[in-house]
């Protein structure tokens, strides 16, 4: 499999506070990769660094062969990395359809269009002229995912898309993942729900305290290994 994204020894800081310590992650073409780990483990920080929201100048982030570290966020977006941000962050004064259209501002060519997004999320059709923030949480998440897809990304980053949603709604949303993969888009999801991550991903990385503590294919990992990587060795055997 060709490598789409590769980070080497990635670090990140919030002021003086170091949030990532040498993270190495790869995502292959067409692959779905999940990042798991507890709150504050560094997963979201990792995504924010990839998108250019956090400074990464001088580091090594290879995307389609180019080092994109230090690029402005809008340039990274145009290069083909789109993000579904944590908390959805829809634009309140824009309608559902306008929220979707704004995702296409970079004018990249590809399979995604308004029609295609409405095809995978038909619930949105009836609501397309409503303000984006007037929808239910699950529908808002669909808009946020659709908005990211509208840019025809090569790599889709999803930050905690199941957070705060009912299990039924989470299931509906994750049903879209295979449809997104069909278009050839690689997916990197950050997920606190380990079961969900295991079900959807080709490979997982577990984060703890800013480091990758475990990685591999879901089938190859035992519950013990995951619990140890997720909570630290001292809690081994208590959870998962």
């Amino acid at each position, binding site marked *: 499999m060709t490598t789409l994204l590769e980070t080497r020894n990635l670090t990140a800081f919030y002021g003086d506070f170091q949030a990532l310590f040498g993270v190495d992650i790869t995502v292959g073409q067409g692959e779905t990769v999940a990042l798991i780990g507890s709150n504050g483990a560094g997963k979201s920080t990792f995504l924010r660094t990839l*998108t*250019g*929201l956090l400074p990464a100048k001088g580091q090594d982030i290879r995307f389609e062969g180019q080092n994109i570290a230090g690029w*402005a*966020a*809008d340039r990274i*977006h*145009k290069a083909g990395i*789109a*993000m579904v*941000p944590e908390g959805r*962050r829809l*634009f*309140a*004064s*824009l309608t559902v359809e*306008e929220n979707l*259209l*704004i*995702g296409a*501002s*970079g004018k990249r060519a590809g399979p995604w269009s308004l029609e295609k997004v409405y095809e995978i999320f038909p619930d949105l059709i009836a609501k397309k002229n409503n303000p984006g923030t007037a929808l239910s949480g699950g529908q808002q998440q669909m808009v946020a995912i659709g*908005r990211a897809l509208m*840019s025809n990304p090569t790599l889709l980053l999803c930050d905690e898309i199941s957070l705060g949603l009912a299990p039924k709604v989470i299931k509906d949303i994750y049903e879209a993942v295979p449809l997104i993969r069909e278009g050839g888009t690689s997916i990197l999801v950050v997920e606190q729900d380990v079961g969900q991550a295991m079900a959807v991903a080709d490979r997982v990385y577990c984060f703890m305290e800013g480091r990758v503590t475990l990685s591999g294919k879901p089938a190859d990992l035992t519950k013990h290994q995951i619990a140890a990587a997720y909570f630290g060795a001292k809690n081994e055997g208590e959870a998962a």
Partner: protein
Amino acid sequence: MVWINAVLQGVLLGGLYALFAAGLSLMFGVMRFINMAHGDFIITAAYLLLALVTGFAIHPALAVPLVIVALAAAGYLNQRILLNRVLGKDILPPVLVTFGLSIIIQNALLEVFSADSQKLQAGWLDTASFKLSEDLAIGALPLLMFLAAVAVIAGLQFVFYKTPLGRMLRATSDDPEIVPLMGGSNAHIFAIATALASVVVAIAGIFLAMKTNFDPAAGPARLLFAFEVVIIGGLGSLWGTLIGGIILGVAQTVGAQIDTGSQVLAGHLVFLALLVVRPRGLFPKT
């Protein structure tokens, strides 16, 4: 009949005040930026037109678009090079920096054009008028001014709600942090917003130059009118800005009808009264 006339003239004057205010409102709406030099930019546009027409003998039909383009370009560069640096969570740095700009502009205008008050002769526009009845007439210039204001507000409304640029401007107003994840550059979008506002500033300055006497220190009074109009109309509402302008204009002309000296005072009093009754303006953004 004098009262009807006063109201009518006030409505038309309101068009000019709406033009003063629309640019200020736009910059605040998109990036929470309070431009204390707004009035001085209007006066600068007036002087630029005066210099082109009287100093360089350029025909007004050419000078007017030149002023608009020059102001738009200057607005873009000013935002990109200077003002973006002070934009942030705190609204105080932009206020201080543009207050400084205001002083610099006033002194520069004083150096170049002296303290004498000036007016641009608008030829037939100055005197032409339309008779509505025996003792009621409206001047061609005030009417043109009002129509320009309606056109500018309608144009901005169209840009904001019907175009991809407007979508991006509204998105930036909502959540600038996320806009780069949609492929928009904040620095560029902010500068575009200022360029748009500067087009309106230029149009306001062009009419001001033809309508009244102005001098290098005339900016702050225009800024005050602009603030009053924006607050009466409600922040972020374009049509509210036009209504706000009309209310201030009518208050002033009716006030002048009551007592010649109290034109400006009457405007301030109506503004204060509305501030007490509707602190968020007549058409607050929901």
